[in-house]
């Protein structure tokens, strides 16, 4: 008995997922994932607006200069990933790898900057709702950046399989989409945490 969907055949069990549906499924997942950030953002806003003493004792706000540099790095990495995708669309695999690596480097620099910022702060996770929401939001976002870098590593390795990306690759598209998503979330997060400080 043959099937209209070749991946259903038992001998192809490793490719059992239908590749043409992967991007659809991933977009649906991203929409769902955005709600969790929406929940954290609205919780943050509610706790902040209703707080009597928002800042813990001895803390007078967040330093914004270094996070701003970090933001510029992350936002520009959204540009480099587009360049990587374009290089791949033109069939320039080495161009793709170069821009892809640059994007990964920018992502890693962002994580490094985040770690430096965390280590210099005078408040912790348990310093009231201010500390709690700060570390929750930046930590959860940082986890997504790390996931993005991980996905890019995977796609980079896959690019060395001969002919793998010849027909275009949904994994690259999905990773790029995820990276833009992480980027947009960071912009909202930056506004909420660093710009809205009154």
């Amino acid at each position: 008995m043959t099937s209209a969907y070749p991946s259903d055949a038992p001998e192809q069990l490793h490719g059992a997922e239908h590749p043409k549906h992967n991007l659809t499924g991933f977009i649906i997942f991203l929409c769902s994932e955005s709600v969790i950030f929406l929940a954290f953002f609205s919780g943050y806003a509610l706790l902040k607006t209703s707080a009597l003493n928002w800042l813990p004792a001895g803390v007078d706000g967040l330093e914004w200069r270094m996070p701003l540099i970090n933001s510029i790095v992350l936002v520009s990495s959204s540009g480099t990933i587009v360049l990587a995708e374009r290089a791949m669309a033109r069939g320039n695999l080495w161009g793709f790898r170069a821009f892809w690596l640059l994007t990964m480097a920018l992502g890693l620099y962002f994580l490094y900057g985040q770690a430096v910022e965390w280590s210099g702060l005078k408040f912790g996770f348990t310093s009231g709702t201010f500390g709690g929401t700060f570390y929750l939001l930046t930590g959860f976002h940082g986890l997504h950046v790390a996931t993005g870098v991980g996905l890019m590593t995977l796609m980079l390795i896959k690019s060395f399989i001969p002919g793998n990306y010849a027909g275009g690759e949904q994994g690259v598209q999905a990773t790029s989409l995820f990276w833009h998503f992480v980027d947009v979330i960071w912009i909202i997060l930056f506004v909420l945490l660093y710009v809205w400080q009154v």
Partner: protein
Amino acid sequence: MTSATFPTSEPKPSWSRYFSFNTDAKVIGIQYIVLAFFYFLIGGLLAMIIRGELITPASDLVDRTVYNGIYTMHGTVMLFLFIFPVLNGLNNLLIPTMIGAPDMAFPRLNAVAFWLVPIFGTLLIASFFVPGGPANSGWWSYPPVSIQNPLGHLVSGQGLWLTAVALSGVSSIMGAVNFVTTIIRMRAPGMGWFRMPVFCWTALAAQSLQLIGLPALTGGAVMLLFDLVAGTSFYRPEGGGDPVLYQHFFWFYSHPAVYVIILPVFGIFSELFPVYARKPLFGYVYVALASFIIVGLGLIVWVHHMFPSGVAQWMRNLFMVNTMLISVPTGVKVFAWLGTLWRGKLRLSTPMLFCLGGLFNFVFAGITGVMLATVPVDIHVSNTYFVVGHFHYVIYGAAVMGIFAAIYHWFPKFIGRMPYEGLGKLHFLLTFVGANLNFLPMHPLGLMGMPRRVSSYDPEFAFWNVIASLGAFLLGVSIIPFLLNMISAWVRGPKAPHNPWNAIGLEWLLPSPPPEDNFGEHVPVVIARPYGYGSGLPLVEHQAEREQALTLADKMEASR
């Protein structure tokens, strides 16, 4: 037609596939349903203990702390380990076969989502055996009760509860991504949106709600877990936190969760009434679209669970109106079903009886639902047995009865054998009488002011409580004919033909049970809307040839 209609030459698949990491949606569907009923028995046993305790006013059967753990676990097990898994089982069986797909879009993801269920189920049940016992802050786990950890153990019942609920969320999201992708991308040729069976419409609506709502609960639960184990103060007033914030997160998902449960049951009603009334579904387009109106409205009613929690008056008014508006699309559906039944040739077989009983109970629950939406009434009966009664009419009276209807209706298709009518009717009778006897007395009790979640009460409440407990024991007994029926029919029931109910739908154009890849290469081309009962018009191209081949295969099977 090829082997798709004559699967006799293939070796019979072995039983062991039900205990393995199998990626066939039909196997996963049965795995879900059987496992769900295992947990149903556990949750039911807890319910029997609760009603046994409440048959007398004194707290005499179990310790008060144990009682708190028991009602918490009853709610959690029934929702996260029975209702959601059993519905996901039906989704797995019905969605691919109804739309003519060979399997789900992501078969391996599907299997992973299933196997998470026994993992978090075991975790949840294991919490009975940790120091301090299981979570005992009610199925909603409101702080500040849920962030107390007086014994100071890292592994507490509450911590396990939160982990289990988070894993359940992961599993449900995996399932939802899969179901939505499958419905969007894998429909048979010719099956446009308005040729899709209503069950798929309602499943799509319900799974969209999962995708929108569940992450909010997960986010809220993560913060609760940090408050419990890491000492943060998101919900601790003494640290500047707000316990009501958790209630927002919880109900933003958990109210829509009720629609996640009831929408597929609306789908089941819409599928079954036309079959057993021999008439097309009245107002098919409106029934289909009403599901999405319910999704939209269902997302903006959650504060009605929090009227007494100190929310602003404008919020109370807004959410009261929104909640009442839900009765419009729901009413559209109810009247569409009545229109379908009107002057139909009713066949009162077991699935139809369960549908009629479920519809009756649902209308009753709808009326008390509008009462509860009204702010003054809600504040009066909040946290009383009135709420418990309303909820159980929705969940047991309507949803579980609808699920039983679906099981009796599609059992022949997916098991290949016929369930027994006599046992089925006995099951229906006991369920219908038991449910009403159990849950109706909760309404006068609530109006009299009996609070929920107490193990002892004033003797003036005794009369209704005794009746409710007797009803509950009847419900407990009702499960015996059901299990007897299912097991004996599965083992030695009469062989089912491909279409025992004379139903119209793609799943009835498959042999019983369907082959592993359903239609294989021979996916039918859909040329009409579903439910063409009485019209004599075909649903798919070459319908007559397909049915002839299937009937021939049935005869060959019967003569063997």
